[in-house]
């Protein structure tokens, strides 16, 4: 069974289902219709193409397609090459220039397509209560959502409490972890040592060059 196709079909189905739940999707997608965005993930050595129309199609081009496209700069409207580890950082648009400089992100073609796609997913506003009410009726849907929110908030607050308790226990009582301030101080010291070593290295290089002359 072609497993990557199975995974992609599942993701494609889920994404389109989500998009269909927001009535604003149609107008947002129309801006992207006819465009193709290729996303290359370095660690997986894998390129996924997102093709936009009145919905989203995900393609997994095989080697022959990729070989052919490498000869043509304009094969995709936009191509992004990124590392798995930088995906989270991409959520902050102000980090993009820095990521490009650090070679963690490479963008070719029309960057606007990637930004529009990101907005499309971020700005999804789904009225879950409204959709649920089609199956259960308004009253039950309202109660379910109200209870769901309460459970979510309680779980979140309990998790925060638990996290705080574990963190205090590890730092203050068991002394198996360092407090945040100590970690920052240690990082500063490491940076200082690195800078000192680099300075020393340049001095040694200068002396070595003089001795050679």
């Amino acid at each position, binding site marked *: *069974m*072609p497993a990557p*196709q*199975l995974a*992609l*079909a599942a993701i494609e189905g889920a994404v389109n289902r989500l998009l269909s739940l927001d009535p604003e999707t149609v107008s947002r997608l129309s801006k992207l*219709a*006819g465009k*193709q965005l290729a996303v290359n993930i370095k660690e997986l050595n894998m390129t996924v193409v997102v*093709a936009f*129309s*009145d*919905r989203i*199609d995900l*393609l*997994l*081009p*095989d080697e*022959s*397609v990729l070989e*052919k*496209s490498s000869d043509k700069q304009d*094969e995709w409207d936009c191509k992004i090459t990124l590392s798995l580890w930088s995906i989270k950082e991409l959520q902050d648009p102000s980090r993009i220039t820095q990521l490009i400089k650090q070679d963690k992100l490479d963008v070719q073609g029309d960057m606007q397509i990637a930004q529009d796609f990101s907005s499309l997913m971020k700005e999804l506003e789904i009225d879950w209560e409204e959709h649920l009410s089609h199956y259960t009726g308004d009253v039950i849907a309202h109660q379910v959502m109200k209870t769901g929110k309460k459970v979510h908030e309680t779980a979140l607050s309990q998790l925060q409490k638990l996290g705080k308790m574990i963190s205090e226990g590890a730092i203050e009582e068991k002394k198996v972890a360092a407090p945040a301030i100590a970690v920052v101080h240690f990082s500063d010291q490491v940076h200082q040592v690195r800078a000192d070593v680099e300075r020393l290295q340049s001095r040694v290089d200068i002396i070595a060059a003089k001795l050679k002359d």
Partner: protein
Amino acid sequence: MTEQTSSSTTHFGFKQVESTQKASMVADVFHSVAAKYDVMNDLMSVGIHRLWKRFTIDCSGVRPGQKILDLAGGTGDLTAKFSRLVGPKGQVVLADINESMVKVGRDKLRDMGIVGNVNYVQANAEELPFPDNHFDVITIAFGLRNVTDKDKALASMYRVLKPGGRLLVLEFSKPTNEQFAKAYDWYSFNILPKIGQIVANDGDSYQYLAESIRMHPDQATLEGMMQDVGFEQTSYHNLTGGIVALHRGFKF
């Protein structure tokens, strides 16, 4: 290699029939199964045929504005996706020799809202009614097996393909593992016709399906046939242990 065993007879499943009769006999099979075609495909392959078709589209390298021929397009699974990928400036032609299949495909796609860049043509793969060098991509999924003269059909596809274009043939093939092949044979001849009888009320058509798969050329033979008519850089990719193979060839 050609399917014709002598000048006047050919295979129809395991039977020998007059070459001139095969097209109408295959047509009868598909007239009979057209209405339940999608349900049966899902049942027989446990839905995996959708992944095989996805893989075919992944290998097509299709771009907006291109012209695609979905030959033996049946109920339009490939056409639906191609239509979105080529966009309003592109064109997809769903061609099938069988009128019932074209009708079912056209109704299904129109119900899905797929209109504008799709044309429907009832056409014989051996004598395609299109100009030379016309299409960027040609696909034939689970159709070549039923064609009487495969060499003629491949040559016809070569003629209508643009230089630089590619042909993708998705077809049942020979499983690569012997034990797996035995289990697959047992399933094909014992279970498959029964499912056909229960769901489509037509066991004979599905008996033909199983037989026609066994009579179809294996991976290497089909690749050779593609090369013989002029396709270059040919290759094939086995899917699900070789139950199905995707053959690919380019015209330069």
